[in-house]
């Protein structure tokens, strides 16, 4: 083990931290940067509750060594709010569609949906399902989650066509 300096960008801010080289990225985001939206569920990359974006791709931060984040850009759900602190369209859709029950999985599912929402291409419901298949939700039964993501995706596609 050793302490090392990590330079990376988190939610658009440059950070320099002293970390333990055995830390997972989830450890560092939660314990040092207090980004507690990053949940530790299974800690073996099965439940997706710790999902964050690394250079715009979805990763389970619990099985990603923090030392690998050097020079990378990390996004958590905290990055989705606007300058006045308002939540984003996808978060509002989760509320509107009843896609949140206990909420433990929610931040991870929302982050898994971001690559779909920010992709220029259109997605079928099955394609969205596949993109969310690394996230477990034990409450909602998934249908409402899919409804929320599908609705937001359609809305964003329609907006970009105007």
């Amino acid at each position, binding site marked *: *083990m*050793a302490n090392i300096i990590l330079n990376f960008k988190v939610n658009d801010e440059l950070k320099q931290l002293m970390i*333990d*080289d*055995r*830390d*997972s990225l989830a*450890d560092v985001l939660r314990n040092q940067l207090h980004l507690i939206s990053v949940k530790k569920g299974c*800690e*073996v*990359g*099965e439940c*997706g509750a710790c*999902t964050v974006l*690394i250079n715009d*791709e*979805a*990763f*389970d931060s619990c*099985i*990603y*060594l923090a*030392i*690998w984040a*050097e020079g990378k850009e990390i996004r958590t759900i905290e990055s989705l709010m606007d300058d006045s602190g308002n939540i984003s369209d996808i978060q509002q859709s989760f509320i509107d569609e009843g896609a949140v029950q206990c909420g433990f999985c929610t931040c991870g599912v929302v982050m*898994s949906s971001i*690559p779909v929402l920010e992709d220029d291409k259109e997605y079928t419901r099955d394609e969205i399902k*596949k*993109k*969310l*298949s*690394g*996230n477990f939700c034990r409450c909602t039964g998934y249908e409402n989650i899919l409804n929320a993501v599908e609705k937001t995706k359609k809305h964003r596609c329609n907006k970009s066509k105007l």
Partner: protein
Amino acid sequence: MYDIGRIYQATSTQDAVEHLVADPSALIIAGGSDVLIKSHHGKSSGCSLVSIYGLDELRGVTLQDDRSIKIGPLTSFSHITKNSTIQKYIPVLGEAVDQIGGPQIRNIGTIGGNISNGVTSADSASTLFALGANIEITGPSGKRVIPISEYYVGVGKVCLKNGELLTAIYITKENYENFTGHYIKYAMRNAMDIATLGCSVICKLNSQKDTIEDVHIAFGVASPTPMRCPKAEEAIKGMKITEEMLHVFGSLTKLEVNPRSSWRASKEFRLQLVEELSKRALKESIRKSGGVING
């Protein structure tokens, strides 16, 4: 925090080799989706790791001058699926690795790690066997290239000696040009599952599209390591595309495999899957080549 004794981040392939030689107990960590899970389960307490994850020289897919396809072992599954060379020449590999785990695992998991972990269920392995992949290994005494069938030496074991690491996967043009392929993963769920059986077929038809000119079939979980079925392949080469040919193929593959019973499935069920999936995967490969099943 992981129970890791020491972790060294290699700065180049050569640097990784030197550190592996200096610390013979060290494990290689690529994406970590096997190594870190073992650590979490306490199976490698205090282990020493050499991380090669940062070695971009081992990433990416390139078409070589001799038209062979070189796959960097650190290329993630999702990048293999998205890669234009893979999509154009060996789409079956991109489709196979797109069935691994879920999106997050396909972003962190690497094709080199998938085969170097040595397990028979690796979704990339059966297709790489079908494609007759060659494995480049770099070690203290230089490079050597071996067929993938020689890379696997037992359950969870590959033939890497101390100081060696996998540095490239090659598919020669003889093994993909004019071939079409199909991979079937049989599992209990569509995502986040391990194959009960994996079957990959590539085939080449004659110009009239009515005869099998060449065929390769490989399985995962049909024996302790991924495997080809050379007798079944030989038997149908030159045969007309008919239901009878499919039947011969399925019944012969069943004689060459050696599956076991596990909590996922019994040996008997796996044998039935071998027969059935051989036929289905070949049928789909024929269809992709423009062939039609007659009779």
